[in-house]
């Protein structure tokens, strides 16, 4: 299974990815780089790492990044990535993100929405009736490009979006989304630590959130609050 935790609204997928990687003691399996990405390296324990990497444990691969994907390369990068995923024959793709909701501060249990091209595949593992189908909506940014490519390539894909703070890191939304997917054996993780360390995570992910918000504005992220006019 391939898990996409790239930075997006509320860093919902990124925080979830980080929690999965830490909980399952996943190891770095693939370094990802491109001439189109900003020249950034992450220094960790006297090693230099690319900001984007794939972690692996058993059948699960988790993609995460320390930098948001620049809007200009979202499409070619998504295309390249899905081509690679298709070649590796992952049994399914889960893409986790946030859906900006100004009413998020009023709830402690963020709603979880989904979009899939393989309801039959996923319904045996996830109780989709507990999630809300993403009705008529816009998706914008890297997640939109990635999901489009997955659907085009007919890779069984489940896009999961938790109701999230638009501009703050939202570990609560990550916990809700992971909770909704906890019946999948690859994604079964203890969420206690994620909830407990939520406040520290909100501080730690603050800078990435600022950068991601800037990138989302360039990708016309505000469209996610609009409804499509045309029924095609």
């Amino acid at each position, binding site marked *: 299974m391939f898990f996409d935790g790239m930075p997006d609204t509320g860093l919902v997928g990124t925080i979830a990815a980080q929690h999965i990687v830490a909980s399952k003691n996943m190891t770095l399996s693939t370094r990802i780089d491109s001439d189109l990405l900003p020249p950034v390296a992450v220094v960790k324990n006297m090693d230099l790492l690319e900001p984007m990497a794939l972690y692996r444990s058993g059948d699960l691969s988790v993609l995460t990044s320390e930098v948001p994907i620049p809007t200009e390369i979202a499409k070619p990068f998504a295309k390249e990535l899905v081509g690679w995923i298709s070649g590796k024959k992952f049994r399914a793709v889960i893409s986790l993100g946030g859906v900006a909701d100004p009413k998020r501060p009023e709830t402690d249990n963020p709603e979880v929405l989904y979009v899939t091209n393989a309801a039959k595949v996923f319904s045996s593992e996830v109780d989709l009736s507990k999630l809300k189908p993403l009705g008529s909506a816009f998706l914008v940014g890297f997640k939109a490009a990635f999901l489009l490519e997955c659907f085009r390539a007919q890779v069984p894909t489940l896009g999961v979006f938790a109701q999230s703070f*638009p*501009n*703050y890191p939202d570990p609560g939304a990550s916990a809700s989304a992971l909770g909704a997917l906890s019946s999948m054996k690859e994604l079964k993780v203890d969420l206690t630590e994620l909830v407990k360390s*939520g*406040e*520290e995570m*909100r*501080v730690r992910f*603050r800078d990435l*959130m600022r950068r991601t918000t800037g990138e989302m504005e360039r990708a016309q992220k505000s469209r996610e609050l609009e409804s499509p006019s045309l029924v095609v």
Partner: protein
Amino acid sequence: MSFWLLDESNDRFRKMMAEARRMEDRTLRALKEFEHAQGCMVPLYELRATPEGYTITVDMPGVKKDEVTLLFQGDYIAVTAPCVSEAEKKRQGRKVRYFIDLALPRGMDEKSIKASMKGGLLRIDMKKAVGGRQLKIE
């Protein structure tokens, strides 16, 4: 011809994106320099319009209601609070505090300003000043 136009507009789009990124980077660098110089953390915040006025939220994880100082200065509110994040303390090598001056929208009724706090999220609600003259539609 159409391809040429497309290439040209793509090039212009890339240049605009690069300029936007440069400007954003300058702002973020100034913000980080300010934080390091002052030993503070500028919290993330958001301003939203409501039917009655505006709501500002400020994300200050770990902060309790009694720890926040709000100083109303007419056209802005200064927000300060201690930051208990171990990661930030380690990063800056000293104790840090949250600090931000929130510019207020014009035409607010200062007596209507109310603040509340839940889960480290400060919320400041304010109403527009009542007044003005109703216009008639002819």
